């Protein structure tokens, strides 16, 4: 016979202000199997928990109902409390008197009646509760980092530093990401390459880190501690074991003039290329789309010139499936396609460029060797206009969110422009200056006061060419007057948007994205680097626009999560998950298609001799999150959820209907 204790919480005045908690506790005493009921001001506090523990001992309770807040908030608290009182932690039910009763109703008779009904249902349910035990899942102590930008590099280095093996997968021929393209970084103006390239070299040198550049993740299966990931290594056409990185092939390749991705289209490359001189690994790849050898079947210049015979036109993609215990997603961002904003004339006027292109023009490793020259005629621009919020905070053309980094990099570019061209003038059209980071406000001050950048609050309405100038028409809303500037160069501060195939990646990983395509974290405040799928973490601008300090902090955080996971040999699995009664399962496969986590599969059921007797669904316990969608969809009631069995639910309904 069940012996139930009911503990009603006042939650200060949160519940007590509209529910007569004493009456609820009194009413609970008359419910079936209830041996003890009491109310207390804060049930979750230490004295509150002691009341529970003592009552369990004194009245020999074997299950309890806590009538307080949402189980999302304090179920773990009371499970732990029950456990320390010697009960199975899953013999606890919570009646949500706060969110679902006192907060949403006024103090009336009916509010207390409803609270009593909620407790009655919880008592009916707990009477049918069965003890559950947590399982153990082994952990493969090897991490996969997807994306080789600063986030991926930092995560890989930190995980390796903790002593675990890491595979770093990067889509382009070199790690480094966007950060490698920048000239200086705000707010300290350190040279981006000087702080990044040592980390890249560390990645290559660390024996625990395996670099997989020019590779992509194709498929992810499995669950926390036990992911099976299929990685496609695209053919580089260069044997990395033979290549010394001498660069002779790059000089002689006849297919020149291909717009360089690394220079954001400002410079060119040839068919065999490495993105930039400090590339890691320093092995070129052949772009088979443009290479004459692959297009026309004849050329072979690079093969002839290579002193070590490293060129291999016959190389093929290599697809491998490997085991990992955790995954860090650090796939970064794309720049918004500002062609969608026609009034800024990008693509029509050569001297209207993006901030990333301007960054390449300022960079010593860029196409102009660090000399700022405008694209149309190579002249040094004197009058430069920066336009902020291109795509960002613009629901009409782009997206409603703020890209977070543009205000700061525009200030940086204005400062660097003054530094490189002393007699230049920079004008910035902005909406608001957002400079909420350490040292950021002072940095804006440096741009405005020390470098004399002309900041104007307002939007640009139109750009048009006039001679070799571009006329920028806008409005300075602070003085309330229209402004017209004849600029030599216009730089658009294009916002960040999710990588074009972020939704595909999310689908492969079985994680969710928001309406824009940014990957969704498990909790925006308390779990910013975890995802809802256990064992998958995220860092940097694949989650939301982030600057370098934020990205590095998140990457280290994600790596810390991975290290925390790997510090254990096995992890506890949550027992409140689905299971299938294979005897009655008809293998219709509906649960398989509705499961949001891909946790269910159809398998052959065998008898003792190994003969297949039927097919039935099976739940992979490591993957199941206990959402119960399968249980709701199953017609034969074969898919069930532990802790939410049919008998428990029916008991609740019957208690309510009495």
């Amino acid at each position, binding site marked *: 016979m069940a012996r139930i204790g009911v503990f009603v919480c006042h939650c200060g005045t949160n519940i007590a202000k509209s529910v007569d908690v004493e009456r609820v506790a009194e009413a609970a005493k008359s419910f079936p199997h209830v041996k003890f009921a009491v109310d207390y001001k804060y049930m979750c506090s230490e004295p509150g928990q002691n009341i529970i523990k003592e009552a369990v001992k004194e009245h020999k309770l074997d299950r309890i109902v806590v009538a307080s807040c949402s189980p999302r908030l304090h179920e773990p608290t009371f499970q732990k409390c029950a456990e320390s009182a010697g009960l199975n932690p899953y013999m606890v039910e919570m009646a949500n008197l706060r969110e679902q009763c006192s907060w949403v109703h006024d103090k009336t008779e009916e509010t207390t009646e409803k609270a009593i009904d909620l407790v009655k249902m919880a008592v009916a349910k707990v009477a049918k509760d069965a003890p559950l035990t947590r399982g153990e899942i082994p952990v493969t102590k090897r991490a996969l980092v997807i994306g080789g930008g600063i986030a991926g590099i930092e995560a890989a280095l930190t995980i390796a530093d903790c002593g675990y093996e890491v595979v770093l997968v990067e889509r382009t021929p070199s790690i480094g990401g966007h950060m490698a393209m920048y000239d200086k970084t705000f707010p300290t103006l350190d040279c981006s390459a000087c702080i990044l390239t040592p980390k890249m070299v560390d990645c290559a040198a660390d024996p625990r880190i395996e670099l997989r550049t020019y590779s992509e993740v194709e498929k992810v299966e499995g669950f926390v501690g036990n992911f099976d990931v299929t990685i496609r290594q695209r053919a580089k056409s260069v044997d990395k074991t033979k290549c010394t990185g001498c660069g002779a092939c790059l000089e002689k390749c006849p297919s020149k003039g291909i717009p360089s991705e690394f220079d954001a289209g400002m410079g060119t490359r040839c068919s065999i290329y490495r993105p930039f001189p400090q590339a890691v690994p320093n092995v070129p790849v052949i772009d088979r789309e443009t290479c004459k050898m692959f297009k026309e079947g004849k050329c072979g210049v690079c093969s002839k010139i290579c002193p070590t015979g490293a060129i291999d036109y016959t190389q093929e993609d290599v697809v491998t499936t490997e085991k990992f215990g955790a995954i860090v997603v650090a796939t970064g961002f794309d720049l918004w396609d500002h062609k969608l904003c026609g009034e800024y004339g990008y693509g029509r006027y050569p001297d209207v460029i993006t901030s990333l292109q301007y960054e390449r023009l300022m960079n010593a490793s860029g196409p102009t060797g660090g000399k700022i020259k405008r694209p149309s005629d190579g002249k040094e621009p004197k009058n430069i206009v920066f336009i902020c919020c291109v795509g960002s905070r613009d629901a009409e053309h782009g997206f409603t969110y703020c890209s977070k980094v543009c205000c700061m990099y525009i200030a940086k570019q204005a400062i660097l422009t003054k530094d490189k061209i002393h007699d230049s003038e920079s004008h910035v059209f902005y909406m608001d200056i957002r400079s909420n980071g350490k040292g950021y406000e002072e940095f804006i001050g440096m741009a405005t006061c020390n470098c004399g950048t002309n900041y104007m609050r307002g939007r640009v309405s139109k750009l048009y060419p006039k001679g070799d100038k571009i006329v920028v028409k806008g409005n300075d809303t602070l003085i309330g007057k229209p402004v017209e500037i004849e600029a030599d160069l216009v730089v658009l501060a294009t916002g960040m948007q999710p990588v074009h195939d972020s939704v595909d990646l999310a689908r492969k990983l079985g994680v969710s994205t928001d309406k824009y395509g940014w990957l969704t974290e498990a909790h925006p405040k308390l779990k910013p680097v975890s995802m809802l799928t256990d064992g998958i973490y995220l860092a940097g601008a694949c989650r939301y626009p982030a600057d370098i300090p934020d990205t590095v902090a998140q990457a280290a955080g994600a790596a810390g999560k991975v290290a925390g996971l790997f510090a254990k040999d096995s992890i506890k699995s949550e027992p409140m998950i689905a299971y299938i009664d294979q005897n009655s399962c008809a293998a219709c496969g509906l649960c398989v298609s509705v499961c949001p986590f891909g946790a269910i599969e*159809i398998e052959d059921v065998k008898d003792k001799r190994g003969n297949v007797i039927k097919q039935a669904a099976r739940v992979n316990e490591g993957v199941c999150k206990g959402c119960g969608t399968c249980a709701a969809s199953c017609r034969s009631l074969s898919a069930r959820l532990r802790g939410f069995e049919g008998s428990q639910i029916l008991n609740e309904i019957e208690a309510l209907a009495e």
Partner: protein
Amino acid sequence: MTDKLREEAKRVLREGIAEMVIGWAEGSAEFKTTPFFAFTEEDCDRLVWNTACVNNLAKYLTDYPKEKKIALCVKPCDSASVNVLIAENKVLRENIYVIGLACGGVIDPIKAADAGTCELSDATAKYACLHCVHDKPEVADIVLGEAERKLTPAGEDMPPFEERRKYWEKEFDKCVRCYACRQVCPNCYCEQCFADRTDPKWTSRKPTAGESWMFHAVRVMHMAGRCVGCGECERVCPKSIPVEKLSREMAKYVKDIYDYTAGMGEKPLLGTYKDEDYDAGVHEE
């Protein structure tokens, strides 16, 4: 037509396309046929095709292992049932040879006996056929014959909203819970029906109007996006309860809300999600 069917059935067995042919044969009385399983070419000479071939033979597919090669004679509605079974992993398309028969409707044996003729007309037709718009099977390896729909389509038959409760209370009061409707349904293949479960007992076996209501209501929910409207449940009901009306109403909702017709899709309705899916429960005012 019967000759063509027999010829095709013999060919199927002769060429080893299937081990057996499931079709219809002359029944015990005029106006009736019986499901028939032909294993040899001689057996095939007993197969018939006429307006009395009412049974939905897709029912028998789930009685055999998926690996067995079976040839099945189907009308358009039966073929939709086969499609549902394929989508739900119960039948492998490659192991089923579907002999489709063009159909302009079949008779209701009782009505036909009353009228004294097997001739298809509005008076003798099976009620479900008056709601059917198909004359060719959706899934078939071969389609035999030609057919034209000559029946006058039946209109809306659900009682007005205000009268429904009374109407169904009266109907369900008749139900003896023999479960014939469930047993004859080709898409009711659960190994254990919720109605037979005892722990917990979702519905009692007492044949009261309330408990029967529960059974039929759950059955129609389980048929959402799956009932092809063959009308077998209604035909076999010993109490002549118009159970098909419920499923037909459900099919109408499914069509309106999700633009889905049972037996026409590659995947089960409830196993697919589209962004534009309308959430009737949440948004409906």
